[in-house]
């Protein structure tokens, strides 16, 4: 590992990452912060991070870009940790580690490394176990599914079309949510250890992670008995919703849910540009938010605004609305995200030399910036097993001959 000029928050912290898709992004977050994160995967058998999208092109094995994204900055070891001949190196890895991450079931225990056996090697570990419903509820790994977790966590019920039913949010969000709190749990454990000498075994429930995302729906039910129903593409009030425009859609919050001045600014904007349409909104009823929340007003406004927007592009509407402090954004497809002027000006997109695909991949930059411990952005995700020599031989004490023996036996 090359030395860095400036400190990073997790310098000197070693993480053993036994996660699958449910929590792998958690290890990624720790790697971004400077930890030495070592993925340990079985020598053969299924790919645990096999989520789409896949990059598939002539001469290239189908490669999961989810795996490339969540493994940025991690080292990779392949090792059957349950094999007797692996005992010495597993012992050394555990001894040298500060944090162990596991998902969606206890991995070490499954291969014979019980809590007692691990404690005997290293009693100072922060251990984070991430499971679908919590460690006391066993779930078969082939039963874990993002759709089912989003349902179990309550978020799925809030989304979708009133006539067609719930629709899951894009992009394995239950994994991102569980993974973010995996990193939170690991950091809480590290802080507790350094401040209080307290050791932590943390039991993360993916269902509970999703349940952080329920807005006010649970208190609403508890206080009023009302169960929130999905809006779908029906706006919540006049001025707040998703509206069609020349080249797609825009999203706006400009009714009572928005800033106080937004509705007035919105009317002025429409009136300035298209007086006829402005006239349709001139009636004093439109000034009352109670009226704007009626179904009639919602539909009337949609009709007027979509006529306003029909000859304007997402970017034009974005610029013009924001000049007037109206919270409007384009509904960007991912190609448009890459072209966003603000993200480009912040040098947000990072080119990463990917060793698996043998080409440059464009990653989003890190979610945050830190002044005292500057972070270097996503680093290449090592190829599977690429660090067997460095970790198992140079660091954990196997001889090259021994490594070769394990390789021939299929243990690495």
């Amino acid at each position, binding site marked *: 590992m090359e030395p860095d000029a400036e400190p990073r*928050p997790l310098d000197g912290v070693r993480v053993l990452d036994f996660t699958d898709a449910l929590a792998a992004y958690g290890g990624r*977050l720790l790697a971004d912060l400077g930890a030495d994160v070592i993925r340990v995967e079985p020598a053969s058998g299924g790919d645990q991070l096999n*989520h*789409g999208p896949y990059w598939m092109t002539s001469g290239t094995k189908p490669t999961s870009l989810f795996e*490339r994204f969540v493994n940025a900055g991690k080292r990779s070891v392949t090792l059957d940790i349950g094999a007797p001949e692996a005992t010495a190196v597993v012992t050394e890895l555990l001894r040298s580690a500060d944090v162990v991450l596991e998902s969606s079931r206890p991995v070490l225990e499954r291969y014979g490394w019980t809590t007692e056996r691990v404690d005997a090697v290293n009693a100072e570990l922060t251990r984070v176990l991430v499971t679908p419903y*919590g460690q006391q509820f066993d779930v078969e790994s*082939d039963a874990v599914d993002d759709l*089912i977790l*989003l*349902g179990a966590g309550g978020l*799925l019920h809030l989304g979708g*079309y009133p006539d067609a*039913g719930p*629709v*899951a*949010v894009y*992009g394995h*969000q239950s994994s*991102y949510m569980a993974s*973010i709190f995996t990193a*939170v749990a690991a*950091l*809480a*454990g*590290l*802080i507790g250890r350094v401040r209080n000498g*307290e050791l932590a075994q*943390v*039991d993360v429930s993916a*269902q*509970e992670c999703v349940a*952080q*995302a*329920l807005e*006010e729906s*649970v*208190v*609403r*039910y*508890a206080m009023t008995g009302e169960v929130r129903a999905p809006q779908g593409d029906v706006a919540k009030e006049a001025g707040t919703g*998703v509206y*069609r425009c020349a080249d*797609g*859609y825009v*999203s706006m*919050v400009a009714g009572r849910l928005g800033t106080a001045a937004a509705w007035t600014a919105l009317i002025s904007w429409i009136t300035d540009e298209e007086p006829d349409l402005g006239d349709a909104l001139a009636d004093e009823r439109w000034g009352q938010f109670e009226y704007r929340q009626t179904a009639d007003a919602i539909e009337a406004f949609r009709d007027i605004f979509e006529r306003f927007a029909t000859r304007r592009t997402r970017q034009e509407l974005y610029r013009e609305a*924001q000049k007037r402090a109206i919270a409007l*954004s384009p*509904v960007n497809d*991912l190609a448009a995200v890459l072209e966003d002027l603000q*993200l480009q*000006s*912040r040098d947000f997109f990072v080119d990463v030399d990917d060793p698996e695909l043998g080409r440059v*991949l*464009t990653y*989003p930059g890190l979610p945050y910036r*830190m*002044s*005292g*411990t500057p972070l270097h952005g996503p680093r290449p995700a090592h190829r599977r097993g690429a660090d067997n020599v460095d970790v198992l031989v140079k660091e954990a004490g196997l001889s090259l001959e021994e490594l070769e023996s394990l390789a021939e036996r299929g243990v690495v």
Partner: protein
Amino acid sequence: MSAELPLRGMRVLDFAWIGAGALVTKALAELGAEIIRIESRARPDNLRKSPPFRPGATGLDASGYFASRNPSKKSVALNMKQPKAREIALELARQSDVFTSNFRTGVLERWGLTYEDVRSANPKIVYLAMPMQGHDGPHRDFVGFGSTIAALAGLVHTTAVPGRPPIGTGTHYPDHVPNPGHALVAVLAAIYHQQRTGEGQFVELSQLESTVNVVGHGLIYSALGGTVEPTGNRTPSSVPRGVFQCADGEWLALACHTDEQWEALVRELGDPSWSNDPRFKTVLHRGRYADDLEVLLRDRVARRDRPDLLAALSDAGVPAGGVNSARDMLEDEHLIAREFWQTVPHPVIGDVPMFHLPFRIGSSARHEMTSPPLLGEHTREIATTLLELSDQEYEELVDDGVFY
């Protein structure tokens, strides 16, 4: 194992408000820190005015939404427009370990509470800002909400049934997990560094940049020239996979990842003829005829009540689960067994179900959350303890409108 919480003894000076910011400090409170919210009476936290309200309750202390995001915090009503307020805030910063804010760029500058200002008072402090799109750049002053950030970041376009308008999550999702979650990771990392070295620092999370990370895998694909289009609830590797309504009106989700699970589904729920139906013989075939299959499943699921069907599918080894409504969430057996919900009494609203952080540390009970603060409930307490003012000095500042 005794539960000495990791942040016990630490103090947070909290200018965070509304959604994303409040969830960061709620989490820090649950990890043991003391949270002192600075609140304005003139421009109160929007959430204090947001429903749901207990029927009949009004005012700035009646919002269940505000309550659910702010247990275990203290509230000091300080008028930042008053000249003396700045010195009070800086004195509190001197005695704090963390400073948090999610104001848009410009507000803290106006009040003279930038990182440079606060660091002069306390070099060790960890200072968190969560501007919408960053402190610099052509769109630094743009306004937004969780839903519009989701749209900018690509989450809305990609969440739809093909051929229908894009809808996103139906919530301000970035405000609830991606942004407070990533911010919490960064703040905790900065606290770890602070505890090891004595050094503080400035942490900035652009809400847009943080949200883009949860579609990062798709973004890489898009940059390679791929097109990411919405697929509803479907995925080509698992067919069938979707959401279906039961006889009792409740929704369930199911997915078949393997042929064994598909065969079990056919036996439990389907018609024997499906086993020989050429349209369904492999996952690739089922993918081509997914529309037909869903019509058939809709009909089958609609004949049975959800509890029966979920029990049967579980016994058969078919991945399935309820699409839990808010009511279902409060009654969920896993969450109850893990004491995820805590009923917290509130002087104005009554009992409010609060949610814990999504993990348990060791074998101890979860940290007990305390009632969210009334606006300004702790002004006198903080003034006469941390600020070491006499009662008279405190009253004078109230008369002057500094505290209110």
